[in-house]
């Protein structure tokens, strides 16, 4: 059975590290569903949050292979543990006069923000888990989505690790 896993990976903040990781996934035929990376409090270390799917032995291999990379400091599999996760999206929707009120209402219900307004569009900033983002997108689709940019998932353990 294929499972979805969220891996939180601490790596050396150096050029080439991302390509070592993406090369590992492409070279061995593993999946990357989403990937987010940015510096941590320590400028020498970056955190990479990666969502992947695979059968349990494949997930085990992925974690082991990641650990084998010299620039990988730590791999945490968050799946099955207590964690918080967020994803962000910027959604540019068609905003005709007859839809403007409805869009604003939806934005209000989902507790997101309008960050840019034009004569015939709104750009909405939304943060949440995957479910919330999909729900919002489903509601906006009939109104007309022009463009979308999503970050991919970031996540942290709940307990102080």
């Amino acid at each position, binding site marked *: 059975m294929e499972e979805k896993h969220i891996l939180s990976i601490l790596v050396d903040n150096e050029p080439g590290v991302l390509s070592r990781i993406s*090369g590992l996934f492409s070279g061995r035929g593993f999946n990357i569903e989403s990937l987010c990376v940015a510096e941590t409090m320590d400028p020498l270390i970056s955190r990479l949050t990666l969502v992947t799917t695979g059968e349990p032995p494949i997930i085990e291999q992925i974690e082991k292979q990641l650990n084998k990379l*010299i*620039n990988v*400091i730590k791999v945490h599999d968050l799946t099955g543990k207590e964690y918080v996760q967020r994803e962000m999206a910027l959604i540019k929707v068609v905003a005709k006069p007859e839809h403007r009120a409805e869009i604003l209402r939806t934005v209000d219900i989902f507790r997101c923000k309008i960050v840019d307004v034009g004569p015939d569009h709104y750009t909405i900033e939304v943060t949440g888990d995957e479910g919330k983002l999909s729900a919002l997108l489903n509601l906006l689709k009939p109104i007309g989505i022009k463009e979308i940019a999503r970050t991919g998932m970031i996540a942290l353990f709940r307990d102080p690790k």
Partner: protein
Amino acid sequence: MKLTGAQIMMKVLKEEGVEIIFGYPGGVVIDIYDEMERTDIRHVLVRQEACAVHAADGYARAGNRVGVCLVTSGPGATNTVTGIASAYMDSIPVVIFTGQVPTHLIGNDAFQEVDTVGITRPITKHNYLVKRTEDLAKIIKEAFYLASSGRPGPVLVDIPKDVSVNQIDYKPLEKVKLKSYSPTYSPNVKQLHQVVKMIKKAKKPIIFAGGGVILSRAANELTELARKTQIPLTTSLMGLGGFPGSDPLWLGMVGMHGTYRSNMSIGECDLLFGIGVRFDDRVTGRIDAFAPNAKIIHIDIDPTSIRKNIPVTVPIVGDCKVTLAHLNKLLDKEDLGDLKKTRKQWFDQIEHWQSTKPLAYEQKDVIKPQFVVEKLYELTKGDAIITTEVGQNQMWAAQYYHYDRPNHFITSGGLGCMGFGLPAAIGAQLACPDKLVVDIAGDGSIQMNIQEMATVAQCNLPIKVVILNNGYLGMVRQWQQLFFDKRYASTCMEHAPDFVKLAEAYGAVGLRATKPEEVEPLLKEGLFSKKAVIMDFVVEKEECVYPMIPAGAAATEMLLV
């Protein structure tokens, strides 16, 4: 102290105990070569850069140390790729230095520029682009440490021209420490206790050892374990020499061209004890039919090797030598009873397999390649270092030469790259100047790097090349014979050179045998010569390597003669 990058490099190489570098000069490494000339480090000029890595690989394996290469940027670096990939697949400690265009030109498609680090990323254990002379010493030290520790492997260091030319204030470094790298050498003892129990319970156990035993220098510990527990033993191609080939517990190699009894034993065993192996497809055949009735114990220093290809009952991450030494101590405290008696039925079964289907060939009018290898074994008393090319020659070298000690069989196992044997022999001969080094070759593969005969001549090395000359790319021809109705597409090597004359052209001795009765006298003449010798044996053209497990078949479904 003000030093240039090249001077720092030489200092660190001396600290790391480097005596020989295999390489080929070029524009961006001139400064390094100029500096090297002032040290006592010996440079061996190969004739093509892949051979620098193969030679360093052979040097590392025969001499149990890190092999070092130095080549220029661009084509120098791209030529090393095959050598690096072979060393990577076989986990051989090699450090490769490549020159790079000056830092300010990187990314500009400069003359002889390639993204060396990008190209070699998936075939090195780790690689570096040095951007500042200040980082050079630390990176070189890290490279040697990474190459030789844990599961060994090639590490590449790419040095831009300006990094080797710039002068900086140099302070010597003590030790290197990497925060994200600490291989596990000591095993989990709880697991070892379980292993003891399983060994005592097993009725039909078998040990399957591999290259990890040789890399961790665990041959003695392995031999002690097998004899103590009376478990018959087989190895992969890479494991040959990890256990004495003349021991009664020895079953011969396992896998696609393994012995009948080894493969049958794997099919029948109730306990399979994998030590320093990675369960490669050439060993397992069809996975679901591999050791179907067995509980499997697997020791390896690399966690990714464990449960990669086959499910395992007891996984043990650890160094083979450390783990086996520990296990042997635990076993000493146990009463194992009369194992020869309890295992009798199992030994009888194995003996039965052996007597029905031993390795065999029939020597008639034409020289059989197996006969040449067998005679070579007899005449050298198994004491030579054997390197091989790839294909039938490699398999016959594995089947008919018997290896009693580690580091005596040097072959491109994982990558299977033709052209490996001659340069590897150069490295092996330089690591062990007093040993007899023989490259067992085919007429096809020897031509892949025949130019290295010039290196042999320049270094005055007494290397012997035994060509099993069948006029074909024999292993592919064998597949065509067995699975493609004898349609020999592009496997017939017409217009081979006259190897005797070719030897002479390179300043070596050339000899040829065409009849079986000439084999022994010719081998004697060639092997005991003080010069480099090419011995051309014109052998049976359509001889096949048996047994053979067809690709994708079960280990027990062997084709026999």
